[in-house]
């Protein structure tokens, strides 16, 4: 596999193909990040596109102090925060817990495996919604750490803060989520629904 830095150098020399390889390599990661931060597929796709376009336009500013992937995450992260800030002014309505439960009760019972899969999907859908109620800065560290599986150092570089801030913010985020989930404890942690 050609290292990122080599591809970046090629891009700067004007190679379109090199950038295409980088897109191929990171589109899924960036899409997942934006999807988890924004909570819907359309916005995630739009912001993923925008993130790569910005990266392409600003490639000349990329100095290589951090890895290309970190820099790219950083761009996507900033775009998501902007979008979330815009949304705070006009909040998006999500499924209420009540609707969620009705949906769960309607699950067909004939095929137990299919039913379980269905329930699991519904639970994870609800989890995404609860996630979306966390403040953006907490949601970000949580997604970067527990969904994207990045190191504390990478997260610090992406969101532009110290390691200590990452630690404390992640701690706050996890506990806040735990508190929100325990309000619906039997949905998330009852046997058979959630399997390790």
């Amino acid at each position, binding site marked *: 596999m050609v290292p990122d830095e080599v591809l970046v150098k090629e891009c700067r020399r004007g190679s*379109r193909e090199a*950038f*295409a390889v980088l*897109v*191929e390599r990171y*589109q*899924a990661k960036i*899409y*997942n990040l934006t*999807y*988890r931060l924004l909570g819907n*597929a359309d916005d995630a*796709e739009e912001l*993923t*596109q*925008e993130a*790569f*376009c*910005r990266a*392409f*336009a600003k490639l*000349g*500013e990329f100095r290589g102090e951090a890895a290309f992937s970190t820099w790219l995450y950083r761009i996507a992260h900033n775009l998501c925060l902007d979008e979330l800030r815009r949304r705070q002014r006009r909040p998006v309505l999500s499924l209420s817990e009540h609707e969620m439960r009705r949906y769960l009760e309607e699950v067909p019972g004939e095929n137990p495996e299919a039913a379980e899969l269905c329930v699991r999907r519904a639970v*994870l859908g609800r*989890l*995404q919604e609860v*996630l979306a109620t966390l403040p953006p800065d907490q949601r970000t560290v*949580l997604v970067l*750490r*527990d*969904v994207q599986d990045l190191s*504390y150092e990478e997260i610090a570089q992406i969101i532009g803060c110290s390691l200590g801030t990452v*630690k*404390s913010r*992640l*701690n706050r985020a*996890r*506990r806040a*989520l*735990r508190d929100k*989930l*325990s309000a619906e404890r039997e949905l*998330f*942690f009852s046997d058979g629904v*959630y399997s*390790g």
Partner: protein
Amino acid sequence: MDCRAVEEKLSAYLDGQLEAKELKSVAIHLETCPSCRAELASLKETIDLVRSLEHVSPPPGLKDKIMGRVDELASVRNLKESRESRGFLPWLWCRLGRRPVLSVAAAAAVLVLALALGRGLLEGGTGVLRLNVPSAGAPQVAIDMKRAEKNSEEPNATSATGGRAPETLIKSAELGSAATSTARQAVPLGRKVVQTGRLVLLVENLDPATDELVRLTQARGGFIQNSFLKRGEGARTASYTLRVPVPAFVNLVQELEKIGEVEQRELGGQDVTEEYVDVEARRRNLERQEERFLNILAQAKTVDDVLKVETQLERVRGEIESLTARLKYLDNQVALATITVELKERPRPVNTVRAFSAANLGTRLRQAMLSSVNALLEYAGQVLVWLAAALPFLLVALVPVAFVWWRKRRRRNKLRN
């Protein structure tokens, strides 16, 4: 370490991010504190749940969409960079090229100023600038030639003066409809030809001749664009530039000839079809470019892109504008013929017919020509001297322009870095 301090560290503890000392004290506390153990378990549960969120796959075609937008960005950037990263002189050249009419005017103004300045410095002494300077030398040449003409008493010897209209110039010493009909036939259908005519007429009295000239022109739907009266050596000369619709051109020329004795007549046409077609093609091309940029603009997502595309649009529109102006000018030139009429009052009645004198003709011709050439050379040399004198000032005048260029360049470099 109390429960509160431990709770703060549990998240990092689960990620293995604690230093050895902290790790030890947290571990010791957990062994002895059931409530902190419960806290740890619930946190672990939460993290595991989040980690079980499945990986979502991006929608199909995402990469193509991204690369499509990247290609647009690249094309806009290439265009911009090819304009921006130039040296001073190419930059200046391009800037001027964008407004050709204005540039030519500016260049002419600079030249005139330079000459005036140069001459003012050299001859006017203490910085008194005389702006009428550049024309001062030229009439001298003309006067010299006129004197030569007089000496030789051969009016037709100087018939090369009007010398424009290179392609279908018809000079005629013999009068009559033969020449005019040639001029008429010289305009093939569908060609764009700028018709020009020049008449030198000898008249007994200038005033009624002028009245007649005005009347005839207006009767043919034409107008007088320019007039010029000169009084010298007792006899007066007047010069008129007439514009008349092309269909009436030949008729008007024939009518005008009746005002006086025709001393000189030139009818000509300059075929501008090629230039016209070329300018039209360039304009069409630019209009297509404009359309393309408008398309890109409609798709531009960021303010930065929009600005980039708009710079391009502005340039293209400027060029279209100047080409349109050129076409308009050509249309006007083609639609209206231009006739220059010089009315000369006869100096004194000639009563006797003198024989043609060939005595010293060769010498007189040579002298006449040499004096003209000398006058021309002297004037040219003087112009060079004036330019040289003005050169330092011109360089100083270039400083602000160079400053603009330098700032643009620096801003670009800054953006890059």
